[in-house]
Structure formats: structure tokens, C-alpha cells
């Protein structure tokens, strides 16, 4: 007796579970039972499981009956003519959606030719075993799975044409690639996903060779001529938003050029791009510190006392300005209202990004790298035909990673470019590599893709034949312009007087605990002190009570708040963090008495 469980709940028993399943499936394929209900038999526990809950993962498979798939040429013709749709195939029971449980009872064939009498289903496409982004990797079946993962991960970070209405959008941190191209080596997923409508890369000529060591460790060398012709150029868009907020007591922010009386007034120079309405004009070239939207806010703490104040309490400056290290052009200004009906100003910043040393590029095979050198075109190696590659890829990236697809794409791209056609590189069902080579040979090239090349500087022929061809390369969103950071002097934290942290705050790079230990290990005592001098302060200390005294700059005298004027007060130098700790100890009720000693 087999127990029948519906969504995990016992509903009855049956004698012949296998017969029930066959009948159930037949009914479902006829359309009498919903195609979303799955049935499976667990032999180990002798349970018949019927599942109809939400949240199950199901996938479509072609039903196989008597070693023949139900999907025939006729169906495909009908589909092409538009006589039937995909959902008709499900209604007819040609395609069914199988869940994890039902999959256990099924034997799925990847290819039609491989179907035996034991098979119950046929995969729609062998490619279906990988995800969408991964199926965009051409010749993926030549690779290890880890590289496919890396390849698909990289593609997600590529710059491209993300939306056709980008001009009226105010997206955060957006990059647009200039003149993106459709890859020469494509896969069916490119067609299915309308890739030609939002491409994300460019077809370039890649030579696999080293160049003066500037493409060591996955770096790449780029042809300056190609960059000047517009290779991998992109635009970076970033919106800046400011709203007139309302505060208690009917007070409101004001978007305007701030008054000179406003607390925290910047210099006139900083406001120079603002028009009368306090908003910057389009096409203004701005750099760091320039105000984009001028704004002033009401005073922060409006106590009852202030009302009797003689001076009108000051408004605060709260403009939006360009951050440290940023530059660009004002692209677009928009004035609207937000949900509360307050004035809302959105300004979009635009910055052209020309490839530079440190920008990240990748092929579609997880072969990412950073630009190590930009070489003038006349110094680049050239082929017998006079072709100079756009990019030099280091061959050492290949053996350890075993990305054969990278090499096959290069050959495929070359064939496609020469023959003027797209190459099908769909994983598992791609064009045959041998045929591609033959075609390459018929075009008058060496069938292995190598060519004789010459040193661009000396004109000498390289003794090795260089592997060159066309590849689809992607520019990734990680660009040095957004990451470059250095500091010698700069802002400090209010509490500890130590340098701020992080690029956005122009912060320093922390010399941490373990780094400190290395200084100690070297016995570099004074170097260590010098490094940690960032929060050094001079503090007056009362020698009587050992507490920190007060120095009055106006009267130029020091006194102790405990012992008064008649004590010896000595200035000592220590880190502000320690002074802070002493203060905190006092709040704990601990009396940290400093006993001073003559140093000499």
C-alpha cells in the first residue's frame, strides 16, 4: 500500500503507484489536470507525492513517447507560421513543466540522437543546462565550469546600452558605452534576448603576445590609435538631487544662491555656475568643490531663547557640491515636485571616460584584466597585411585557466570578420571548429589563426608566429577614475582628531595593529611615533593634581580647574586619542592622574 501525499499531507493510499502516475500524467498532458501540478513516486519511502504549492522550481522538457519526441517538424513549421503558440504545445502535452520531484523519476536526454527506449524526456536545448548570462559565453562547452561562471559574472559588469530612454532617466551610477557592437561570434541566446538592442561590447583585434612585460599578471596592452578612434569610450552619468524640505514651525529650505550671511558660506568662486534660481546651467564644466544646487536651510535648533536674540538667527548653507576628485559636465537639469509637494531639483552629471591605465576589460571567458600600458599605434606590432591589433593579451593567462573557448572565439571572430557573417558559437551546438579553420584557410590565412608579425618599433619580423584574430571585448564598470585615491593632508574626525576613513571622505589608509607590530619588530621606534603623530596634541597638565589643565588663548595663561591659578602647569605632547581616553575614564569615575617627570 502506497501512501499518497498532497503537498506533504496524507490524503489516502493506492495499490499501484506507477499506474496512478502514468494515468495522472496522461490526463495532465490531455489538459484535464493543470500543467502546474506535479506527481512523483519515491521508491525508498514508498510514497506518491503530488505537489501543487507555489514556490517550486519547474522547468520545461519535451515529452518523449516510444523513443520519439512528441515535438515534430510539423509543430515547428506551425510555430514559424504563427498558427500555434508555445502555450499550445503545453496544452497538447508536447512540452511539460517538471519539478524537482518529478525530475527524479524522469530520464532526460540532452540530444535527440541519444534517445533510447528508457528516456522519458528530451531537453529543449542542451544549452538549457546553463543560465542566461552563462549561455552568452561562446563555445562554453570547451571550458571548465569555473571559467564559465567567471565569464558570466564578468558580463554582468560590462558597460553597454542599458536602456534606450536613458536621456530622460535619473539612474544612479550609470555608464553607457559609446558605439557598442553586436558580437561577431554569437549564440542563440543573443538572438533570443534581443542582444542587438542592448549590446555591451566591441569587436576588436586581439593578438596573443607579451609586450615589454606590460601585460604581465593578466594586464592588457591597448593600442592608443584605437582609443583615439573611440575604442571603449564610455560616459558616466550620476544624478545629484536636492529637495526643499519642510521643518517644524513652517520653516523651509530654500534653493537659491546662498546669502553671504549664511553660516558655512563657501566662496563666491564656488557659486559661479549658479543661475538666479540657484541651480547650475546645463553644459557647465564643473570640478571638485563647485556648487551644483545652491541651498540654505533654517537654523538647526530653534529654541525659544533664540526668538529674543538680537541678531536674526543664521540660516545654514546646505548646497550640493561636487565631491572630492570629481569632475564632469552638467548634462540635464530637471525641476519637479516630490511626493510631499516640495520643490525637487535633479541635476545629472556627465563625464566622458576614455580608457586609461587601470581600467578593467574582459573577454567573455572570464579572462579579465587591467590596462597596463597604452602604446602609440606606430609602436604596436603589425601583421604582414598591415593590421595592428587593438589589444595585446598575455598568453600566460591561458594554460592555467584552460579557457579554450577564448582561443576558439578568436579564430571564429577572424573567420566571421573575413567572411562577413556571424558565427554561431552556441555552447554545445556551435559551428565546428575544424570547419572554421578550413574556412579561414580558404580566405588565405593560416588555419591555426597565427600570422607573421613585425615589431612596431624596429620593423623586425618576430621569429614566432602570433595568434591574432577578432574577439568581442567588454569594458567593465570598474574604472580607475572612480577608485583613484591618495592623501597627504586632509580632513580629520571630530571625536578622535584622527584622519577620516574612506575615499569619499578623502580619508587616510590606516596603519593597523599588525602593521604597527612590524614597526616594533624592526625596532623602528621613532618611525612608529612619526606614523602615529596624526592626532598629536599639546596638552597643559597641572602637576599638582595630574589632570588636564586649561589654557586661555586670549589672556595667554593656563590654569587648573581643580587647583586654580597657583599651580605648576606644564605642556606635554601626546596623542589626542589618549587624551580622549583620559576624559572617558573620568566619566567612569576613574581619576587618571598624570605624574610628570623630567625627560632628561
Amino acid at each position: 500500500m502506497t501512501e499518497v501525499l498532497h503537498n506533504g499531507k496524507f490524503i489516502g493510499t493506492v495499490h499501484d503507484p506507477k499506474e496512478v502516475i502514468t494515468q495522472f500524467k496522461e490526463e495532465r498532458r490531455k489538459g484535464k489536470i493543470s500543467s502546474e501540478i506535479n506527481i512523483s513516486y519515491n521508491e525508498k519511502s514508498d510514497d506518491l507525492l503530488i505537489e501543487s504549492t507555489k514556490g517550486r522550481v519547474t522547468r520545461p522538457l519535451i515529452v518523449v513517447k516510444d523513443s520519439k519526441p512528441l515535438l515534430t517538424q510539423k509543430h515547428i513549421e506551425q510555430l514559424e507560421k504563427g498558427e500555434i503558440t508555445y502555450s499550445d504545445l503545453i496544452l497538447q502535452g508536447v512540452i511539460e513543466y517538471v519539478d524537482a520531484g518529478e525530475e527524479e523519476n524522469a530520464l532526460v536526454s540532452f540530444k535527440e540522437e541519444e534517445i533510447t527506449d528508457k528516456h522519458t524526456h528530451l531537453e529543449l536545448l542542451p544549452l538549457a543546462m546553463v543560465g542566461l548570462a552563462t549561455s552568452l559565453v561562446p563555445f562554453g562547452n570547451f571550458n571548465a565550469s569555473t571559467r564559465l561562471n567567471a565569464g558570466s559574472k564578468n558580463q554582468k559588469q560590462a558597460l553597454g546600452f542599458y536602456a534606450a530612454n536613458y536621456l530622460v532617466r535619473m539612474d544612479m551610477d550609470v555608464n553607457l558605452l559609446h558605439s557598442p557592437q553586436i558580437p561577431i561570434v554569437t549564440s542563440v541566446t543573443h538572438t533570443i534576448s534581443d542582444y542587438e538592442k542592448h549590446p555591451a561590447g566591441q569587436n576588436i583585434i586581439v593578438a596573443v603576445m607579451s609586450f615589454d612585460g606590460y601585460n604581465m599578471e593578466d594586464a592588457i596592452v591597448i593600442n592608443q590609435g584605437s582609443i583615439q578612434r573611440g575604442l571603449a569610450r564610455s560616459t558616466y552619468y550620476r544624478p545629484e538631487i536636492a529637495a526643499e524640505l519642510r521643518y517644524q514651525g513652517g520653516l523651509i529650505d530654500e534653493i537659491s544662491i546662498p546669502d553671504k550671511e549664511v553660516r558655512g558660506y563657501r566662496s563666491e568662486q564656488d557659486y559661479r555656475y549658479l543661475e538666479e534660481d540657484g541651480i547650475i546651467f546645463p553644459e557647465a564644466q564643473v570640478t571638485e568643490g563647485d556648487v551644483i544646487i545652491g541651498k540654505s536651510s533654517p537654523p538647526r535648533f530653534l529654541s525659544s531663547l533664540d526668538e529674543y536674540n538680537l541678531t536674526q538667527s543664521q540660516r545654514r548653507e546646505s548646497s550640493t557640491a561636487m565631491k572630492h576628485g570629481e569632475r564632469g559636465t552638467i548634462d540635464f537639469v530637471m525641476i519637479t515636485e516630490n511626493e510631499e509637494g516640495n520643490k525637487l531639483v535633479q541635476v545629472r552629471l556627465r563625464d566622458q571616460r576614455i580608457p586609461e591605465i587601470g581600467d578593467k576589460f574582459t573577454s567573455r571567458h572570464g579572462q579579465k584584466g587591467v590596462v597596463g600600458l597604452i602604446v602609440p599605434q606606430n609602436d604596436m606590432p603589425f601583421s604582414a597585411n598591415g593590421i595592428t591589433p587593438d589589444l595585446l593579451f598575455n598568453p600566460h593567462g591561458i594554460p592555467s585557466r584552460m579557457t579554450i573557448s577564448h582561443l576558439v572565439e578568436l579564430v571564429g571572430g577572424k573567420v566571421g570578420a573575413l567572411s562577413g557573417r556571424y558565427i554561431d558559437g552556441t555552447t554545445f551546438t556551435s559551428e565546428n571548429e575544424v570547419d572554421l579553420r578550413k574556412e579561414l584557410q580558404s580566405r588565405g590565412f593560416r588555419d591555426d589563426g597565427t600570422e607573421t608579425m613585425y615589431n612596431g618599433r624596429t620593423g623586425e619580423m618576430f621569429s614566432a608566429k602570433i595568434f591574432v584574430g577578432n574577439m568581442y571585448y567588454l569594458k567593465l564598470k570598474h574604472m580607475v577614475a572612480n577608485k583613484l585615491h591618495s592623501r597627504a593632508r586632509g580632513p580629520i574626525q571630530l571625536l578622535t582628531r584622527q584622519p577620516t576613513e574612506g575615499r569619499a571622505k578623502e580619508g587616510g589608509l590606516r596603519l593597523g595593529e599588525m602593521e604597527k607590530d612590524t614597526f616594533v619588530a624592526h625596532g623602528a621606534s621613532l618611525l612608529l611615533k612619526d606614523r602615529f603623530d596624526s592626532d598629536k596634541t599639546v596638552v597643559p597638565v597641572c602637576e599638582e593634581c595630574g589632570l588636564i589643565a586649561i589654557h586661555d588663548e586670549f589672556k595667554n595663561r593656563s590654569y587648573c580647574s581643580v587647583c586654580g591659578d597657583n599651580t605648576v602647569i606644564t605642556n606635554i605632547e601626546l596623542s589626542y586619542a589618549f587624551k580622549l581616553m583620559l576624559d572617558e575614564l573620568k566619566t567612569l569615575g576613574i581619576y587618571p592622574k598624570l605624574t610628570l617627570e623630567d625627560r632628561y
Partner: protein
Amino acid sequence: MESTLKNYKDKLPIKLLDEIRENTPKGVSSSRVKKIADAVLEEFSSSQVEPGESVGIVSAESLGEPGTQMTLNTFHFAGVAEMNVTMGLPRIIEILDGRKKIATPMMEIYLKSPYNKGKDIKKIAESIKESELKEFIIEVDINIAEINIDVKLNTAKLKEAGIKDQEIIKVVEKLSKNCTAKINDSSLLIKLKGKDQNINELYKIKEKIKSIYISGIKGVSQVLPVRREDEFIIITAGTNLKDILELEFVDDKKTVSNDIYEIESVLGIEAARQAMINEIFKVIETQGLNIDIRHIMLVSDVICNLGKIKGITRYGIVSEKPSVLARASFETPIRHLINASMIGEVDELNSVIENVMLNQPIPVGTGIMKLYSK
């Protein structure tokens, strides 16, 4: 020669002087001896650590950096009776923390001749192993009508272990004051004495019977005779160094335990220090790492120098630091600061970490020198 070497008594350690004596051929002129001793002295002083060298931090880094590469694997003995031993990072942490209860206590028992050549090795090993009565029991029955317990014994096993009936009766009778035991063939009969024969009493005895200690060394739960180079040794799980060393067939000079605390209590702190060095070095060696033994020696010295084992924890070594700020900078700062303030502790700012906190030159390396003026 002796007269020449006399001048070096304060300059060279005794061990080096002995070595010079040993290796210098007889009849060498005293001027030559002086030359040799000078060369030794030069070499000796050049290999000494320079003043102000941060040996502590260098040792910590030398141990800590390879520690990041250590794996958490445990080492398994191949063989019938498998024993697992804590190795790798957990073992090092265990030693350095000065844990009283270690995860896998074990001993390596070396034997005196002729046992170390394999004589009666199995028998000796079995005799060390702690055994309880339950190992020799087949079945226990309580006869309520008669008010007695009938224990069926495995006589074959008893014979093999060489346990006499009288011994069993003796230990069983020790369980309760008013019970008597008798052995008939393979059954042990336990009866209650006196008039008030209480069933409850009988049940209590029944439960106790199983865990009666019969023979072997207490604490030794597993034994494994193995061949190490060309002698036989016994590896045990569980330690009892004190009792083991008292056995006549044990070579008490070579037998070791991996429980540092036990070594400290049985053999003293110097032995514990050496054991600690050996244990840490063993782990590092099996991991295929290379750390200079002097770093390990330094760490062991620090742990042992107070005459008892003080682990590198906030309760051990760190609590012994003279500086309040140094203690506060390592875990539970508030506690240290409050305790210090209650007794009015003074921090002389003599070591490294306090001076880093105050941003003063640290007293190591170039900072150890001070300029005095009159």
C-alpha cells in the same frame, strides 16, 4: 689549557667551555687554546641577540604568520585501534592557552629491555589499560525472591587478563558494608548481610557493579603497542604519568605525556617547559612549516617563568603584566581600569603598548637609548 680557559669563565657558557675542552686535541699550546677560545667567543657574541631587539614581537609574528596557513586537520594513526590526536592549530592554541583539560590526552610509554624488543608487548599493554568489571560480565540478574544478584562472568576473558576470583570478591564486597560475594564456576552471587534485606540496596549495588575498577592504570582508556624505529612502545589514550612511571617495566627517562599540566605536577616546571617546546615543535613539523625553535623556546619560557603554567590568555600571562594600560589593551579593558583605580595603581609606561597609546617613542630598537645630560 685549564688556566687559559679560566679567563673565559664569565664570558662563555659552561656548555661551550666543555665543548672546547672536548674537541681540542691534547698537548695544544696555551696560545693556541687562547686563539680557539677567542674565535669561539667572537662567534658566540655575534650570535647573541642585540640589545633592544623586539624578540617578543618577532616570535609572535614568526609563530602567528605560519599559523594562518595551518589546517584544522586531525592526524590519524593507521592500524586496528585507531586513535585520534589533536594536531594543527587547535593543538597549538591548547598548549599556548595553558588549558588544564586537553582534548586528547595521551602518553608514549617507552619500555625497559627486554620488553622494548617486543617481549610480552601485548600483555603489558593490556595490563596498563584500565578495565572495569563490565568488560567481564555477560549478564546481570536480580533475583527478587531470594534477594540476591547473579552475575554471569566471562571466565575465559578473566583468565586471559589474569584476574583471580578472590580479587573480584574483594572489590565487590567493598561496594557495600553489608554484602557478601561468592563465586561458583562462572557466576558471581552477591547477597545482602543481616536481617533488613532491602531491595533498593540491591539495585544500588547492581548499578555500581558495572563500573568497578578491576585492573590497569586509571585514566588509560586505550592502548596501542607500536614499533618506533627499532623498539616497541605503547601509545595510550588518556594519561596517568605518575602511576605509569612507577611501573617497573617502564623506562621512566623516556616516557612522556602530552598533558603539560600533568608533566608539571609530576616532573616539575622545567620538564613542562621542555615538553611544551617538544609538543609545539612536533605540530609545526608535521604541518611542514619551519619555525626557528628559539621562538618556541621564548614563548615556553614566558609561559613557565613564574614556576607554574600561565597560558597566554587574559587570566594567564596577560594578567601578570605590570602595566595597567597594557592589560587594558588586551580584552576586558574596563575591568582592568576599574580594578586598577580602586587600588591606585601606577603605570610606569615602561613597555611598548602603553607608549604606542600615548604616542611616545617605544622603548625597543632605536628607542631604547636615552640621552642624559648633566
